[in-house]
């Protein structure tokens, strides 16, 4: 007893002598501080409104001629022109036709493949660094010859690379550690610096890490918050041994090392789980056989802040097999096989591929390990390989240079092997990312992505707000400034709800405003996923706001909005649907003991897909089996609810 008294006394003495040294210089009384924090709200309703008025639109995934497969397939549009197009200027596409966007983007991340970045450009330039090798000289000569010789050379190059038969010495020049590789990365950075104009256009520095294991896609993009000074201190991470790796855990190490070395910030986000044949979102074990453990879930949650849910190679929100009750789940579905169609798809693979299922399984893994590895924001991109971002169906330049507008592009299949076939018309005219950032700068956009205040659309620029809280009431939907109320009373998309008040279900303020030059809206849906006490996951789609005063039928389903698409003229009218939808919705099935998430899906009225414009402009037939209208959509990042006592 006395001993402990002495030690306490010693502690007090210590604190008296040591702590004042680090204490602040000024002392304030309660009376002095009080006037600085006046009670109540300011008189002026316009004060403190520092939330964004509109989202910033961009593409987080675009390839230029620097990417081996892009350049190989004929992309001759480099970094500068890719930026110029995104900024609203007219450029010449690789196929020799002029192209211009309907509206400029606010930001762009060019993400060329890190493996062999720039090699193809040097081959086309007949640079001595490649022509000194037999392969390089042969391909260079072939590609410069044009015509069928060029096509054959390209196919030979791609086959040689995928079989791992590239001259290792030549390829080493396009890998980390080589001077040429560093110079190419420097070009990427310089182009971004030249086009980055804080306030009006942001050029994010980034690359794609192209992990492919037996044709199963685990690709991820990496984007930096930082500018040239920090990005120059590294080169992109690759997948080729011994420097690179195909294991995401090794990519995380690279990201960790970057931050430690530069004091900067970086993140990664995956895409095309739909082509991963089940290995994108593992639940039990990684593709390596390594068990999913605490380290894996923590690392994945730390670095993978978003998921690219929609792009040209398919829409990855939901699959009809996994979500049989969701009548809108079958949109842009690519489920023939893996990335190169070398292995066909089976039903068991689907659960490891789609975002909604991953969000659900994330709850399960969180229950098990205390961290949710699949707590990601949702965003969309084009992944175009011809340097031309996709912003509207009537201006679709395809996946790569070989699919730029022509009377023939609908004829040949996009991909065909013994395992299956994908048709040209199945390319999805997708997508864009909307970011609720305060400012159009790298830092502000990155930070909004980091807090998941982002959403995906399949192209149209509808403004979508989602806020979750405990005390939204119906009158909030009639407010003239819903976002002010949303931020004041709740959390925005990407946020968390905790500490459920006794007997209260979460309520959501959700609002959508159609694209100012686009189609009206059909409905807003809230998609809920949850984990029950037995450890089973569930999902439910709620229609929460819709146009035209429709009444749900006896089966609880809302009737379809209608269809104004005129196939022959590829037009539609805004005579159905609504320009704006807004509502407050409260979860009728809430259980405060269950982990859950909620995200909004906003559907447009039916509009013509890109190939209807092709049919009209080139006078060709609409491909057999291709739908003549589709409902474009937005997917917001979820808001997660976690029960108390965690």
């Amino acid at each position, binding site marked *: 007893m006395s001993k402990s008294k002495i030690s306490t006394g010693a502690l007090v003495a210590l604190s008296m002598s040591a702590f004042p040294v680090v204490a602040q210089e000024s002392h304030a009384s309660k009376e002095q501080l009080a006037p600085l924090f006046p009670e109540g709200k300011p008189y002026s309703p316009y004060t403190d409104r520092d939330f964004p008025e*509109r989202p910033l639109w961009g593409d987080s995934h675009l390839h230029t001629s620097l990417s081996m497969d892009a350049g190989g397939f004929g992309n001759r549009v480099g970094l500068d022109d890719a930026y110029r197009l995104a900024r609203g200027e007219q450029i010449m596409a690789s196929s020799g036709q002029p192209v211009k966007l309907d509206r400029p983007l606010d930001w762009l991340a060019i993400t060329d493949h890190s493996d062999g970045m720039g090699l193809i450009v040097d081959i086309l330039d007949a640079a*001595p660094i490649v022509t000194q090798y037999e392969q390089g000289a042969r391909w260079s000569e072939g590609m410069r010859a044009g015509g069928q010789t060029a096509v054959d050379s390209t196919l030979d190059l791609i086959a040689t690379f995928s079989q791992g038969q590239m001259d290792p010495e030549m390829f080493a020049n396009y890998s980390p550690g080589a001077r040429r590789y560093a110079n190419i990365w420097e070009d990427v950075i310089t182009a971004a610096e030249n086009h980055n104009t804080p306030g009006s256009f942001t050029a994010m520095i980034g690359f794609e890490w192209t992990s492919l294991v037996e044709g199963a896609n685990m690709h991820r993009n990496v984007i930096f918050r930082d500018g040239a000074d920090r990005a120059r201190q590294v080169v992109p991470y690759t997948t080729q041994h011994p420097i690179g790796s195909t294991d995401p855990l090794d990519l995380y190490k690279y990201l960790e090392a970057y931050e430690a070395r530069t004091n900067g910030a970086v993140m990664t986000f995956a895409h095309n789980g739909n082509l991963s044949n089940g290995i994108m979102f593992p639940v039990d074990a990684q593709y390596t056989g390594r068990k999913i453990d605490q380290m894996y879930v923590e690392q994945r949650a730390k670095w993978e802040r978003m998921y690219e849910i929609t792009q040209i190679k398919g829409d990855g929100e939901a699959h009809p097999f996994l979500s049989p009750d969701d009548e809108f789940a079958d949109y842009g579905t690519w489920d023939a096989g893996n990335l190169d169609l070398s292995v066909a798809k089976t039903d068991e693979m689907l659960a490891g591929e789609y975002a909604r299922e991953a969000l659900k399984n994330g709850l399960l893994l969180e229950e098990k390990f205390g961290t949710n590895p699949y707590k990601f924001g949702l965003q969309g991109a084009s992944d175009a390989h011809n340097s031309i971002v996709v912003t509207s169906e009537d201006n679709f330049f395809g996946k790569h240079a070989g699919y730029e507008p022509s009377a023939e592009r609908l004829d040949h299949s996009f991909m065909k092997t013994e395992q299956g076939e994908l048709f040209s018309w199945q390319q999805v005219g997708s997508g864009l990312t909307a970011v609720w950032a305060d400012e159009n700068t790298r830092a502000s956009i990155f930070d909004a992505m980091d807090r998941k205040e982002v959403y995906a659309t399949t192209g149209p620029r509808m403004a979508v707000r989602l806020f979750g809280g405990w005390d939204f009431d119906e009158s909030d939907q009639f407010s003239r400034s819903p976002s002010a109320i949303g931020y004041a009373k709740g959390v925005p998309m990407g946020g968390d709800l905790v500490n459920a008040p006794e007997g209260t279900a979460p309520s959501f303020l959700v609002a959508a405003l159609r694209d100012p030059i686009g189609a009206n809206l059909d409905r807003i849906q809230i998609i809920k996923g949850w984990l029950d006490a037995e450890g089973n996951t569930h999902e439910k789609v709620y229609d929460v706001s819709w146009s035209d005063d429709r009444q749900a039928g006896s089966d609880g389903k809302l009737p379809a909005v209608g269809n104004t698409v005129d196939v022959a003229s590829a037009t539609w009218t805004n005579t159905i649907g609504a320009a704006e939808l807004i509502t407050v919705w409260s979860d009728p099935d809430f259980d405060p003991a269950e982990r859950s998430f909620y995200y909004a899906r906003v559907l447009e009225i039916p509009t013509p897909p890109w190939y209807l414009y092709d049919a009209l402009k080139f006078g060709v037939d609409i491909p057999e089996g291709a739908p003549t209208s589709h409902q474009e959509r937005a997917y917001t990042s979820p808001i997660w609810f976690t029960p108390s006592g965690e």
Partner: protein
Amino acid sequence: MKILKEPLLHFLLMAVAIFAWFIAVDDSAPQTNQNVVEITATDLDLLATQFEKTWQRQPSEQERKKLTDGFVRQEILVREAIALGMDQNDALIRRRLQQKMEFFIASFAEALEPTTDELEEYYQTNSAKYEIGPKVAFLQVFLGDAPQQQETTQILEQLRSGQSPGQLGKPTQLSLQVSLAADTRIDAMFGTGFAAAISAMPVEEWTGPVKSGYGYHLVFVEQKEAGHLPPLQDVQVGVVADWRTAKKMELMELQYEKLAARYTVHLPSAADEAQP
């Protein structure tokens, strides 16, 4: 002395200086015998350094020998190839030489610094590229996509008599107040053409209706900021870089023209071309 300011003169003086320097420091033995391959210690050091750059380590003894042998081999074969005229009419070699020559000329431009006057002149000539577009700040009241004339007039009167715009017109998610924003930003919110339409409206007065992508609006333009050219010092870094790029092109052309002037080019006559 206008000639002292002539970039071409600067260029030529620099070229002379560099050649003089090369001659001054070139202490390698003159090659008297064509069949002697002289390898200096400097050559070997260079080979070792190149190896180290690639492999991040020193070459071993064996590797050193291989490097040296390779170097000798290359030297001999290159000499023989040149003797046989193999460097002639090779597209790759010609292209490389052309590239080297262009780099050589361009490298002078990289070092050039514009004078204040030069930069100012360049800035003014290319001002369109640096101009900051017009901006406008406004309030808007939404009338829907098919407003009645009578209702519009009534709301306009209410606004003009000082009633707060906050609760007038139709509810909308569009911002009531848009702070000073560029045309592109306003068009992104209201649809293409809206910024141009409100920019034409008088300031500090409720007017309209103006058409947007959603319907019609009454607007109160609070402030207009004309497009303008920012002071040069605000954008100097970018302008200097652009000036240098332009200068580089100019110098390349000048130098090429100068060299080309020493040559007479014979093109086939129309009659020759007609021959198969």
